[in-house]
C-alpha cells in the first residue's frame, strides 16, 4: 500500500535561490496562485456587470461579503468594516486553497503547516498591530487585566502571555490538522479501494465518497473558523476585553 502521507510532499518545480534563502516554486506555491486567481475570478465584477437585481454569482458573492461584514461589525464594532478586505482575503484564500485541494490530483496548500503558520502569524501580527495602534503601550495591559489582585499578577501574566501566544499556534494547527486528516483518510480509503479490487473495493469507495462530501463542508467550515477567530482577536485588540 502506498504511504498515505506521500501526497503531502512538496517538490521543487522551479528552483529559486535569493541570498541564502530557498524560494523555490513548489506545487504548493502553484496551488496558492491558482487559489488567488480563482478567488479573484469569483469575486471580481467589472462595475458595469454589477446589477441592482443580482444574478446568481453576484448574489452569492454579496451574501458572503455581507456575512463577513456583519461578522466584523458584530465582533469588532463600528470599525469592523475597515478590516473587511483582510478578513475577506483570509477567508477566500483559505477557502480556495481548501477547495482546489479537493480536486483529485491537485495539492492542498493549507495542509502545509508552514503555509497555515504563515497565515496564522500574519493574522496574529495584524491583531497585535491593531491593539498597539488603538491603545499604544496600554495594549499590554491585556496580560494583567485591571482588577487583578497584585499578588496574582506574577501568575496571571505568564498565563495570559502563553494563552495569547497560543492563538497563532492553534490557528495554524487547526487548519493544518483538519486538512491533513481529511486528505489522509481519503488517501487511505482510496488505496484500500484500489488494493481490494472490485469484489470488496466498493465498501471503502463508498466511504471515500462520503468523506469527500464531508471534506467539502470542512473546507468551508475551516475557512470560516480561521476568519472568525482572526476577527475575534482583532476585536479583542480593539476593545481590550
Amino acid at each position: 500500500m502506498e504511504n498515505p502521507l506521500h501526497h503531502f510532499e512538496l517538490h521543487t518545480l522551479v528552483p529559486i535561490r535569493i541570498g541564502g534563502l530557498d524560494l523555490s516554486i513548489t506545487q504548493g506555491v502553484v496551488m496558492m496562485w491558482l487559489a488567488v486567481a480563482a478567488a479573484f475570478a469569483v469575486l471580481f465584477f467589472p462595475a458595469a456587470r454589477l446589477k441592482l437585481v443580482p444574478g446568481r454569482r453576484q448574489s452569492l458573492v454579496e451574501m458572503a461579503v455581507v456575512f463577513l461584514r456583519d461578522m466584523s461589525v458584530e465582533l469588532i464594532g463600528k470599525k469592523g468594516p475597515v478590516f473587511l478586505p483582510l478578513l475577506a482575503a483570509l477567508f477566500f484564500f483559505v477557502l480556495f486553497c481548501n477547495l482546489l485541494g479537493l480536486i483529485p490530483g491537485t495539492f492542498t496548500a493549507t495542509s502545509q503547516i508552514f503555509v497555515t503558520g504563515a497565515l496564522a502569524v500574519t493574522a496574529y501580527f495584524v491583531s497585535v498591530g491593531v491593539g498597539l495602534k488603538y491603545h499604544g503601550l496600554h495594549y499590554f495591559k491585556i496580560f494583567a487585566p485591571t482588577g487583578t489582585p497584585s499578588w496574582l499578577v506574577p501568575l496571571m501574566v505568564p498565563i495570559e502571555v502563553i494563552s495569547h501566544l497560543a492563538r497563532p499556534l492553534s490557528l495554524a494547527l487547526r487548519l493544518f490538522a483538519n486538512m491533513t486528516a481529511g486528505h489522509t483518510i481519503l488517501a487511505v480509503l482510496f488505496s484500500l479501494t484500489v488494493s481490494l479490487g472490485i469484489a470488496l473495493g466498493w465498501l471503502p469507495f463508498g466511504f471515500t465518497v462520503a468523506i469527500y462530501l464531508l471534506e467539502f463542508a470542512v473546507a468551508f467550515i475551516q475557512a470560516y473558523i480561521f476568519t472568525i477567530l482572526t476577527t475575534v482577536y482583532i476585536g479583542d485588540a480593539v476593545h481590550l476585553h
Partner: protein
Amino acid sequence: MPQFDVHFLTSSVFWSVVSFAILLYLLAKYALPPVLKAIDEREQSIRQTINEAQRLKAEGETLIKEYEEKMAAIRKESQEILEGARLQAQRLLEANERETRTRAEKILSDAKEEIERETARAIRDVRGHAASLALAATEQILRKKVDDGDQRRLVEEFLRQLEAGKG
C-alpha cells in the same frame, strides 16, 4: 510527516505571505469596492422604495378617509333631500285631497240645492197645473150644472182641500 520537513520552510512561508498579500491587494483594490457599492446602493434603493411605499400608503389612507367623509356627507344630504321630497309630496297630496273633497262637497251641495229647487218648482208647476185643470173641470161642470148651489159648494170645498194639501 513530510509537512515538518524544513527544507521548504522559507519557500512556503514566503510564497504564502506573498500570495495572500496579492489576494488582499486585489480584493481591497478591485473586487470589494464595487460589490460593497452595489450592496449599499441596493440597501439605499430598498430603503427608498419602502419609504416611498409608506408615503403612498399614508397618502392613500388620507384619500380614503376624505372620500369616506365625503360619501357620508353626500349620503346625509341625499337623505335630507329625500325626506324633504317625501314631506312635500305628502303635503301636496293632502292639499290635493282637501281641495278635491271640498270641490266634491260643493258639487254635491249644489246638486242638492238644484234638486230641491227643481222639486219645489215641479211641485209648484204641478199645483198650478192641477189648479188650472181643476178650474177647467170645474168650469165644464159648472157650465153644465151652474145653477146647482150644492155643486158650487162642493167645488169650493175641493179647492180648499187642494189649498190645504199644498202646505
